[in-house]
């Protein structure tokens, strides 16, 4: 027995060292690390990524314990409890979650799904047929899709059925529930991943390579926004599904997550004709997306990969040259010193041309759009256009501003091609005060125009110019204060410093951002709304602003007193330090 095991292990090891598995491993690693992997990339291990992907499903399941617990149901007086009916909205949420997370991963791997110029130069000169590279990459994609789909849904596939079925007397119920749930969420994940892949394939096939490179950023942003928007449908869709009698005029027929919920209900024997139609849509869509991926991958491989040395992998062509008048105008009005003028040009061009940065800004703007739409949706049918705007209406520019400012500050810490930062190390002898000034002006230049040119006319049109002026003035003041808070300890030139040690403070930072969001977009508009009815309460803002400004001023002063320099390497403070107390003796 042991001999057979050893023999099998030896055979497996020998097989893993043959060309095809080696190629598959390389392709999988390449896709995982991304095509632009370099020393400045955030180094996330496979284990950490898989853990991060599994967390949302696990937590979401745990939070449902109180809904399905039989003791809690008894306390609530829910004598007759139908677990399948109660689980439907949660099932929808898990479908959406699996689709969004897997779609997000596919979006993250967008550039590396197809082999690139580096793969061409490393693999094609070797004595292996290009069809083997094609097959190896296809196998790697399938493996990663499967791994991703299983990982994202692993926790929820165990915990959610256990939560729902725990209170049921029959173990068979739990098993059946788990089987259907797992099948549906995994299919949802696979659909989402392949749908993103199909978009890449179609674009590569239809467009010239350079055009594809140029527009891929915008397409990714749109997909990211759509995925986020899908996440927010979990609040609305389940109630719509309950009332659904026909799909003919329902917007649900365009929503893939609703199709998979239909399939789930069909498998559970709870589908009405409308849900059955949605279920068939899910099956057709899944088969179609598989076929599209297969066709586009094959054709795209022949069309793009084999011609890579002819096109190169440069993103391309002419960069915008018609923006110099904007910069000249801003030089006169806002950026006065040569450092600020050069820094602003560099920052703006990096923000909009570097894929990672532009994607973060685009994604967060999309999130802001979704959050703002949700706020507006909640007012649907209410008195949104009364004589005075409600707190929700007042919160909309604050939602946009918060998301934009936080995202901009966040991407300032994300390095862009660190190997090129020598030029700043070599040329700059400026103090951090200058870099703070640059960061402040850049952030405000990106956020304030929207208030002046979009929010002010809209509020003015609906609620009068005085109210619009007051509200926009307050929003501007709040933007300035938030900017000051965000850059209180900033000692860098944007994009030129190594990654900060996120792992030391990630949890605190996330909590601070979430708390900040509620303070900024929920509490502030509420106080403002009250102040509009009783103007004396408006003085509260004055004291609050002064308090925030004073605190930031103190932090800034302490940073400068600590003899801060412009930093290019963010090294965490050592866990312990030798004080050399006896050195002076």
């Amino acid at each position, binding site marked *: 027995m042991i001999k057979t095991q050893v023999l099998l292990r030896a055979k497996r090891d020998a097989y893993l*060292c*043959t*060309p095809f598995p*080696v*190629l598959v491993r*390389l392709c999988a*690693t*390449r896709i995982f*690390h991304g095509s632009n*992997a*370099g*020393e400045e990339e955030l180094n996330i291990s496979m284990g950490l990524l898989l853990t991060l992907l599994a967390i949302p499903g696990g937590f979401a399941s745990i939070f449902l314990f109180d809904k399905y617990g039989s003791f809690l149901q008894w306390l609530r007086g829910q004598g007759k409890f139908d677990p399948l009916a109660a689980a439907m909205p949660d099932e929808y949420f898990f479908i959406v979650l699996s689709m969004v997370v897997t779609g997000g991963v596919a979006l993250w791997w967008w550039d590396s799904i197809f082999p690139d*110029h*580096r793969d*061409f*130069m*490393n*693999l*094609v*000169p*070797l*004595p*292996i*047929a290009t069809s083997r590279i094609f097959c190896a990459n296809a196998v790697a994609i399938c493996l990663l899709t499967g791994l991703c789909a299983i990982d994202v849904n692993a926790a929820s596939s165990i915990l959610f059925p256990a939560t729902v079925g725990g209170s049921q007397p029959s173990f068979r119920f739990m098993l059946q529930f788990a089987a259907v749930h797992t099948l549906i969420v995994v299919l949802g994940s696979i659909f989402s991943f392949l749908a993103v892949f199909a978009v890449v394939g179609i674009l590569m096939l239809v467009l010239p390579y350079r055009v594809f490179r140029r527009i891929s950023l915008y397409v990714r942003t749109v997909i990211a926004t759509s995925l986020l928007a899908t996440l927010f449908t979990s609040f609305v869709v389940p109630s719509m599904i309950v009332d659904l009698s026909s799909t003919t005029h329902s917007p649900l027929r365009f929503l893939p997550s609703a199709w998979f919920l239909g399939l789930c209900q069909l498998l559970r024997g709870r589908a009405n004709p409308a849900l059955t139609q949605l279920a068939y849509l899910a099956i057709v869509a899944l088969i179609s997306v598989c076929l599209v991926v297969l066709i586009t991958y094959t054709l795209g491989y022949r069309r793009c990969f084999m011609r890579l*040395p*002819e096109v190169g992998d440069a993103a391309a062509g002419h960069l915008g040259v018609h923006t110099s008048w904007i910069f000249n105008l801003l030089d006169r009005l806002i950026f006065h010193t040569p450092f600020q003028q050069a820094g602003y040009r560099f920052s703006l061009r990096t923000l909009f041309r570097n894929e990672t940065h532009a994607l973060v800004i685009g994604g967060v703007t999309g999130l802001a759009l979704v959050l703002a739409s949700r706020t507006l949706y909640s007012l649907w049918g209410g008195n949104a256009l009364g004589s005075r705007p409600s707190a929700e209406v007042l919160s909309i520019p604050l939602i946009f501003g918060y998301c934009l400012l936080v995202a901009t500050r966040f991407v300032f810490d994300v390095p862009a091609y660190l190997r090129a930062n020598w030029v700043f190390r070599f040329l700059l002898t400026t103090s951090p005060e200058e870099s703070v000034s640059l960061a402040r002006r850049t952030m405000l230049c990106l956020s304030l125009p929207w208030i002046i040119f979009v929010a002010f006319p809209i509020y003015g049109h609906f609620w009068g110019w005085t109210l619009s002026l007051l509200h926009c003035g307050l929003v501007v003041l709040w933007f300035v204060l938030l900017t000051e808070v965000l850059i209180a300890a900033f000692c860098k030139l944007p994009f030129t410093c190594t990654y900060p040690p996120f792992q030391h403070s990630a949890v605190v930072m996330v909590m601070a951002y979430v708390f900040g969001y509620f303070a900024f977009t929920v509490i502030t508009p509420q106080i403002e709304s009250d102040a509009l009815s009783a103007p004396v309460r408006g003085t509260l803002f004055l004291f609050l602003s002064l308090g925030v400004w004073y605190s930031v001023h103190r932090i800034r002063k302490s940073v400068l007193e600590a003899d801060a320099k412009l930093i290019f390497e963010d090294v965490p403070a050592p866990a312990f330090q030798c004080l050399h107390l006896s050195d002076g003796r």
Partner: protein
Amino acid sequence: MLQAIELSKSYASIPAVQDVSFELRAGQILGCLGPNGSGKSTTVKMLTGLLQPSQGRVLFRGEDIHRDLTGYRKRIGYVPEEPNLYPYLSGREYLEMVGILRGIPQPRLGKRIDNLLVLLSLYPSRHSAMASYSKGMRQRVLLIAALLDDPEVLILDEPLSGLDVSSALVLKNLISALGREGKAIFYCSHVLEVVERVCSHLLILRRGTVIASGSTTEIQQRIGHSSLEHIFHHLVDDVDPGEVTRKIVDAIRAA
């Protein structure tokens, strides 16, 4: 051993290489020279089979390389112009991968990789990710990858780029030694001194066409200059370097 017959390549109807023909024999080191944009890299890519010529053929031992591209690539070693390697692999991992894909049996492969890593001073950093390698180190990894399977033909595109003095010296001697061993070597470079010292034959390109080819001494006699720098200047340069230098100095002063 390797023969290029009237090779032409156009990118979107713009000709990059036109009617380039030459022969590379066993033991011959053919230096390919030319200014930027003269078609050197395109020629190299066609020789390695990375690019399909628009016209013409590349023959290896009398057979078109595209008839059995995999078999042909088994016999060539290639060092590309840019050391575009996978930064998340270590040097040893990369070489192991190349060796397996080349079909070198495992025990021999490990020993050969370690030997070459030691000889090219990469052994201490063999387990570090290549993201941390200098340009010279990456170049040496590529060189080992090219030599790993004892190729009959070596195609080197700027192999000295980024190498330190001693590594460059080793490589120059190595190229000569491999030539004496009977390998056919196609050597592309901008460094005229090295080409002059190492190569027995020359191929000079300008705007995608061959403007001179033959043995180094033959070309020297034909042009009437003893140094390669003068020959190159005579054949290729449209501009007077002295004149350009003067203009640059003036431009700096004016700024």
